[in-house]
């Protein structure tokens, strides 16, 4: 019903999200409780030297998590997900996240995939996800 898309090292799976709208940033602010004005108040963001509103980094990480869950299947249990934000994401951006299954360190060890989010080929997030289980 929710088959995993990643089975062996090197397998990749991608999702696309966006274009990001200001409405989505307001929805995310409300859902997450992050009401920093740099994410929806354009004049404030310009005055802060940001050139306009920025998407919440955690919205991009949520996209990465969506990709990870879909890549490994909804039955998989995520034991770790880490991300570093490498470049800003703005309104209008389309974010593409790719999960790439890594070589397993040892049989029975955790299953890991790298996560990379890009906007027009510019990397905006790099991360890694680890799931429990004994996928063959």
């Amino acid at each position: 019903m929710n088959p995993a898309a990643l089975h062996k090292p090197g397998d990749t799976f991608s999702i696309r999200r966006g274009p990001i709208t200001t409405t989505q940033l307001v929805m995310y602010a409300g859902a997450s409780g992050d009401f920093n004005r740099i994410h929806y108040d354009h004049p404030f963001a310009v005055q802060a030297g940001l050139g306009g509103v920025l998407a919440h980094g955690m919205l991009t990480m949520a996209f990465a998590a969506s990709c990870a869950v879909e890549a490994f299947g909804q039955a998989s249990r995520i034991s770790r997900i880490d991300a570093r934000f490498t470049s800003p994401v703005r309104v209008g951006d389309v974010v593409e996240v790719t999960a790439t299954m890594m070589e397993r360190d040892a049989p029975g060890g955790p299953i890991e995939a790298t996560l990379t989010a890009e906007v027009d080929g510019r990397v905006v997030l790099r991360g890694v996800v680890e799931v429990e289980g004994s996928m063959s």
Partner: protein
Amino acid sequence: MSDRAEIDRTLIGSSAASFTVEVEKGAIRRFAEAVGDPAQIYFDEAFARSLGYAGIVAPPTFPTTFRPHSKPAWIRGLDEGRFLAGEQGFRYWRPIVAGDRLECALRLTDVQDKRSSKGSMELIIQDLVITSPAGDMVCVNRRVVIYRGLTTTLAQEASS
């Protein structure tokens, strides 16, 4: 002009007042909708249970919504326009599901100075430790926030 440290280092190791979170289906649904994630485990309890979960599942980054009732002392008075997302990490001992009652403690783990060609910044490293009422570990969410120095421009912006 060089920027100087603005975050009180004496607060390293201290924690904000702990708080309790009741994980609600509606909050999970609104979060999943806001991030545009249609996965059934976030919306359909029977489906989530069929996969062995104890209820509707919270998305992996959902603990970012767990916030202290008031700003932690180390953030108070800082300029919100100078915060940027640095890193985040979530380590899970078990999935978080709707109906969970969770104890949360947010600790200031470290503050580090960083310099780049764009200027100076401080990294605020915080750990949100999430446990069950019985004290079992559920999740740790590490949040690394960048606080830009006054003269520091937007770092890592690609030229366009």
